[in-house]
């Protein structure tokens, strides 16, 4: 049994996998006062030079067992290719370490279930890197929905687009076996995590996907139905020009009005005033949101999610997005894939 640590204690962190996300999390961990970067691991031995050049002043290992035998850690960030999350999580969970896994939780639903099972019976703190939940505008929308400002919600439309894939692709990221999927798994999963946070788990899903540039899907569309009668649509593509960064759009229709959420703003329309929001239009811009992040690297949300994980390790509490939520996100994704393959709607209770 691990107890909440004294606030003066720093969480000793290892970052496993030094690709783009590993470098980002390494830098962010360095800026969290309650964390101490203690070890770095990657199978590519040449990255030892990077670690030295980057002035990180922590030991680098290309041998995981050696790292565990030489360095005492409290927590790790898993930042390697998606298919490495499960084996690395097994090794870390066996040593009682708290684990942040970059999204998606795993490359397949089966692997995600195994990941989630690793945490049961253990008191480890586990988080998944879905950062939309840490955006100020998304948190404001969550509060509006949770407080019932809109009344009963009956419909939503959600989309996420990015301009990334416009020609034939190769490499692990475009291999179904290794990456587990394409735009639905790697891009829409961010938005699905938000939908899960807002509306809970769907009852059934009907999905279609299209693969044009590689063996994984470049786009996907899904109709989601919920127990209370709520219906929603989800659309994703990574092959649309004009989206330098991933861009979300969520429109919610409800008894008392509507809510539209994007990367830039939140527009609320109310038939009747509620919880301090006036009748008719309220328009909040990202630039109007209070500055809550202590550090900005890679964009809004990254520092917050890392800080939330470290604070959770200290306080022995559940982070905002744990593996439980990560697994539910992958359950929806699995349902979309199964539906796309069969041409039939899939009940979520059958995705086990």
């Amino acid at each position: 049994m691990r107890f909440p640590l004294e606030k003066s204690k720093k969480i000793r962190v290892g970052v496993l996998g030094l690709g783009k996300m590993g470098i980002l999390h390494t830098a962010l961990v360095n800026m969290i006062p309650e964390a101490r970067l203690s070890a770095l691991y990657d199978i590519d031995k040449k990255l030892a030079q990077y670690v030295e050049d980057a002035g990180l002043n922590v030991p680098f290992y290309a041998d995981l067992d050696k790292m565990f035998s030489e360095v005492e850690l409290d927590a790790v960030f898993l930042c390697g290719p998606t298919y490495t999350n499960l084996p690395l999580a097994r090794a870390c969970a066996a040593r009682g370490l708290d684990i942040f896994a970059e999204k998606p939780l795993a490359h397949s639903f089966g692997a995600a279930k195994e990941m989630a099972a690793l945490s049961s019976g253990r008191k480890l703190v586990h988080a998944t890197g879905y950062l939309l939940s840490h955006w100020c505008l998304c948190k404001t929308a969550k509060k509006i929905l949770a407080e019932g400002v809109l009344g009963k919600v009956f419909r939503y439309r959600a989309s996420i687009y990015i301009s990334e894939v416009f020609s034939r692709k190769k490499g692990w990221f475009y291999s179904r076996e290794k990456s587990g999927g394409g735009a639905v798994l790697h891009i829409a999963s961010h938005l699905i995590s938000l939908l899960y946070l807002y509306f809970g788990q769907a009852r059934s899903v009907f999905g279609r996907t299209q693969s044009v540039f590689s063996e994984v899907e470049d786009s996907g569309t899904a109709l989601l139905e919920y127990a209370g009668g709520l219906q929603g649509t989800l659309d994703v593509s990574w092959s649309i020009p004009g989206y330098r960064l991933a861009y979300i759009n969520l429109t919610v229709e409800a008894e008392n009005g509507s809510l539209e959420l994007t990367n830039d703003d939140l527009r609320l329309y109310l038939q009747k005033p509620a919880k301090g929001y006036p009748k008719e239009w309220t328009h909040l811009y990202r630039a109007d949101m209070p500055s809550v992040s202590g550090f900005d690297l890679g964009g809004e949300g990254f520092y917050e999610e890392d800080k939330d994980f470290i604070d959770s390790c200290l306080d022995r509490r559940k982070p905002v997005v744990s593996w439980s939520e990560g697994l539910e996100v992958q359950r929806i994704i699995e349902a979309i894939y199964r539906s796309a393959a069969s041409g039939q709607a899939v009940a979520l209770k059958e995705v086990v």
Partner: protein
Amino acid sequence: MVTLDRLILGSNAFEGVSYTSRSQSLHYLEHFGNPDNVVAVLAAAHSLGVKTFALSNTENVMAALEKFDRSKELTLLPVIPNVYEYARDASEKGVLGSVLEKAKRINMYQKIRLGLRALGKIKSVLSKDVFDLLVELIDFELAAFRPYKIGAVLLHGQVTDLALSSHNKGLLDLFFNLMRDEHGLEPMLATHNFGTLVPQLMEWGIKVPVMAPLNKRGFMMKPNPEACLKLVEEAGYPVIAKKVLAGGRLTPEEGFGFVADKKIISAVVGIGSVPEAYHSLSVGKQALKFTSA
């Protein structure tokens, strides 16, 4: 230390960056995808005496510089390396691969203009370490600006902030030495973490101009607006204010009015149209008491 104009034209809008809406961003991308429309804004700014231009090495902006018949009268402040372009491809090709990919996209005419030196260096990046790679990137991108007058060079905020978070003074020293000794140019730093960067620079004994968000709404002022404003007033660092209009949430009158009495050397502002250029830059000139030569 180089003397900068009080008012500087930025290139965010030319690159499709908007903080207000998707439709605005798309409009910028489409509109400024045509270099002639970038030229129109450059010409409007030039006619108002705003002749300093902070920019990244993006295709449409570089094409506009070639087309603009008075571009040799501009003072450029290149922001390098163009991190977003590399980062976009980094998952698939790795950081090195994305650099090579960019090099491949340059046509023969541009290759000749850039000169063989830069190209020769690009071929060598695969065998280099991180410091050398940064040197290659900077050399490669700087080559594109060589035909023009370069006032100073800004290290991209993502690289500055990566060095900051890694406590890596060596990386900044490398940039400073490269600029001063090899290129004879003044180095400056861009950042999104002014309130954390400046105390660290003071500790390291580094004093260079810093470009950072500064606005009435506190937009992107990290770790908080109060800390940033205190440092602007008390630290004695030459500050170039950016995000002055808080991503489009402040009018030019409000935005420039706020920064005018702060201890800044310059303010940079992105412009989305010719009418906006005349209005915003005129307001900026008046507020900042900028009288162009």
